């Protein structure tokens, strides 16, 4: 069962402090090449599939810029059915 996570970053509020990148264990995040209105190079998602949903990035962000969502994986329902039948 593969869980899929989506990391959404508010790039207008991001101040590029780097804490999220530092505390992500899976190299999901990196610095973007585009500046935001405040003149920072905000963080962006580099490798979404690597995200394990630990939410440490969101935990550490001083600006509450990060939201994390878990998407239902397509083979979740089938796995539950099989589990019930056993």
């Amino acid at each position: 069962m593969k869980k899929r996570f989506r990391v959404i970053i508010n790039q207008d509020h991001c101040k590029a402090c780097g804490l999220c990148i530092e505390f992500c264990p899976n190299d999901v995040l990196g610095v973007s090449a585009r500046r935001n209105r405040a003149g920072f190079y905000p963080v962006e998602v580099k490798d979404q599939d690597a995200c394990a949903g630990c939410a440490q990035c969101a935990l550490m962000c001083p600006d509450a810029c990060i939201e994390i969502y878990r998407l239902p994986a397509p083979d979740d329902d089938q796995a539950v059915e099989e589990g019930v039948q056993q």
Partner: protein
Amino acid sequence: MPDTPDLADAEVVYHRPAGLTEVQMRYCPGCTHGTAHKLVAEVLEELDIIDRTVAIATVGCSVYAYEYFNTDAIQAAHGRGPAVATGIKRASPESIVFTYQGDGDLAAIGLSEVIHTAQRGDSITVIFINNAVFGMTRGQMAPTTLLGQKTTTTPLGRDPRIAGTPMMICELLAPIPGVAYLARETMIDPKTVRNARRSIKKAFQAQIDGAGFSLVELVSTCPAWWHMSPLEAMAWIRDEMLKQYPLQIFVDYEG
């Protein structure tokens, strides 16, 4: 919830807390003021008390806190937050009242008010940001500045013969019977951030239960006036500040 179709069925793992407004916080990059605001906001949401909370913004970098917390709010004169809190709580006891104070506001000009409020055992909560420096006014010595630490008013490093020793607020308040919850935490890695949130939650729970005064001291960064990057500042807390200000739960609340 962002407006993308593929997130329509998504489960929220972490969202921006409802206790924060949408206003961007003005703090410096990597300043843990923002983290502290976020944790308080999460706790207010989790405990379902946003609707009856009054935030007291005090003087310092957090002077605009009334723009960030999604609650009724009031601006207090420098150091007087706990007196204002008591006035509100006595006149409106169903309100949940908290002050958000820096080390200048609480430990310098406001020392009398915080001690007397603790002494009275008023059920208000104090969030105390200790970053060893006066931030808003550009980096002067605070009562919590470390010995030898250079600031704009201790350019040669804090000398105890001139400027005394660092003030230990939790140790000062711990013996007071009116204190229901008292802890020193920090926010330098996921473990300490989670501990900080847990302490903040206990502090507000103590207030909800009318158990008495609660205070959480949060050892915090000031990258700007420590002249460090955000990560260097976190390391300085770990390597230097925590030696002076050890993390501890001084008075626990079980509820």
